[in-house]
């Protein structure tokens, strides 16, 4: 754009960019390097600077050697494996319902969105209460149909499914609106043609809807795997990694090591391993993308 003198423009551009750029460098770009250096140190922020020790790869070796890493990743994979299929199924279902016309649709959308805007802390407290072994409403309902429910968050095998239930409940509305936007983009004529050919509703879903929203589902899958590896707040408030470490996950361990035990070097090593795992997982997904995602040309 040609406005203002060259000098005035230079100064202005600099001033407009300055705050965001300073924050970018200070809080995003430099920390990548700092974090990498930290992961090679033994560093306790409460102790004097002279106590900082260079330990090479020991933090990483410790992390690999003990059961910690294996357990954390088994837990997080279990979380992802349960959460993603469930949340994708419920949000596609919800989006398909919302794609039809019915009375009070706006109100309905608002209702479905309430869990999304609620904070994780509040949701975690609500679900801890719903999942209470004795007086939780879920077990009370199960009891009426003759099932004795587990004590969910206090049971090693049921704690993670409990967290997943809360997470699916909280997030479905959000993803449903995204899938809905994709559904709205599908040309009605496809369905017309299919109906004339006598295709059943299930076939229409399988051969028209699913392929045409597959790019959106792929996007949600990628986003969710990245976010899934970093699951934290739900676990922190619902189980604190318990019972007996059954829901310990990487980010929760980064937090605990860094800010409870002040082992910031070790915590940085955990964070870096997580970062690399996420990158690898994302690359793998893009490799397999062509196998099932169809883009309209």
């Amino acid at each position, binding site marked *: 754009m040609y406005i203002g003198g060259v000098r005035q423009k230079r100064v202005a551009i600099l001033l407009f960019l300055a705050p965001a750029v300073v924050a970018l460098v200070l809080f995003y770009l*430099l920390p990548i390097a700092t974090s990498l250096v930290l992961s090679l140190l033994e560093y306790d922020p409460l102790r004097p600077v002279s106590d900082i020790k260079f330990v090479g790869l020991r933090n990483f070796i410790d992390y690999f050697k003990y059961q910690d890493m294996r357990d954390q990743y088994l837990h997080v994979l279990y979380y992802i494996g349960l959460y993603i299929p469930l949340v994708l199924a419920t949000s596609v279902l919800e989006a398909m319902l919302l794609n039809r016309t019915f009375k009070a649709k706006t109100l309905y959308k608002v*209702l479905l*969105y309430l869990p999304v805007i609620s904070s994780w*802390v509040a949701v975690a407290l609500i679900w801890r209460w719903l999942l209470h072994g004795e007086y939780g409403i879920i077990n009370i309902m199960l009891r009426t149909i003759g099932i004795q429910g587990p004590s969910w968050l206090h049971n090693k095998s049921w704690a993670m499914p409990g967290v997943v239930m809360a997470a699916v409940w909280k997030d479905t*509305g959000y993803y449903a609106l*995204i899938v809905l936007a994709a559904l709205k983009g599908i040309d009605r004529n496809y369905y017309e043609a299919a109906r004339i050919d006598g295709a059943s509703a299930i076939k229409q879903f399988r051969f028209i809807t699913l392929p045409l929203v597959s790019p959106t589902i792929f996007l949600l899958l990628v986003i969710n795997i990245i976010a899934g590896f970093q699951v934290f707040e739900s676990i922190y408030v619902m189980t604190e990694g318990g019972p007996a470490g059954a829901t310990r996950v990487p980010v929760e361990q980064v937090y605990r090591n860094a800010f409870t035990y002040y082992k910031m070097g070790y915590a940085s090593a955990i964070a870096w391993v997580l970062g690399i795992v996420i990158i690898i997982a994302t690359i793998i997904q893009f490799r397999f993308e062509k196998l099932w995602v169809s883009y309209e040309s």
Partner: protein
Amino acid sequence: MRADRIASRTLFYLFLTAIAIAALLPFLWMVSTSLKAREAIFAIPIRWIPREPSLEAYKAIFTLTNINFIRAFINSMQVAVLLTFLPLITSAMAAFAFAKFNFKGKQVLFSAFLLTMMIPGTITMIPNFITLKTMRLLNTYTALVLPSLCNSMGIFLMRQNFVKIHDEYLEAAVMDGASLYRIFWTIILPLAKPVLFTMGLFNFMGAWNNFLWPLIILTDRKKWTLQLGLSNLGSNFYNYQHYQMAGALISIVPIIIVYLISQRYVEQGLSTGGIKG
């Protein structure tokens, strides 16, 4: 064919109702529990409508000695306002520079901003804590605000918006002797009101619900936000579910009000940017 229609219609309403119930029931149970007295929360069979509604829980949580909820509420408001407007201004400024000027390294810088969206927060969290500790900013709201001044999603969305503003407007203003700063304030920002509003809304919701970063930065109870107080209530009053539900309700109500007022914008923001609240 007709029977088919009716069956599909029934199935549709069945799903619709089931999902609505699943979405709402936890909230109703929260409200119900928060209005019960201590003995009543463990009563079986359950009562959705408390026999003797009681405000015991609300009175109790506002008079706790170790968590000051009124203060936490005010703190949260303060933090949310700061985190709504300051990132909005800095990203609008940067977006203006990216949209309307050419300068050396523009592409590289813009890519650097986009890159930040891919850096896991887990990696930057510890260095940022150390940086802010060195700057003696722990337990200040400045420490909550500073990292968010780089809001890449905001810059990205606003840049897209500003690009569409015709250069002629701005050139005409320059002819009239307006400075670039004046143009930014009096032409760009007013024209971008819808996108500013949407971004601001998401900033507010994000700030209000923010947990991990305040947890790290604010160790002083007096500075605690509502979410920190609530999380502490959850661990210190583990078996006082009516307190917890009252606290949860208080923390959710403001966000619901904001959402209801601006529901249209929330949905628009979702479909254009896919930003998470």
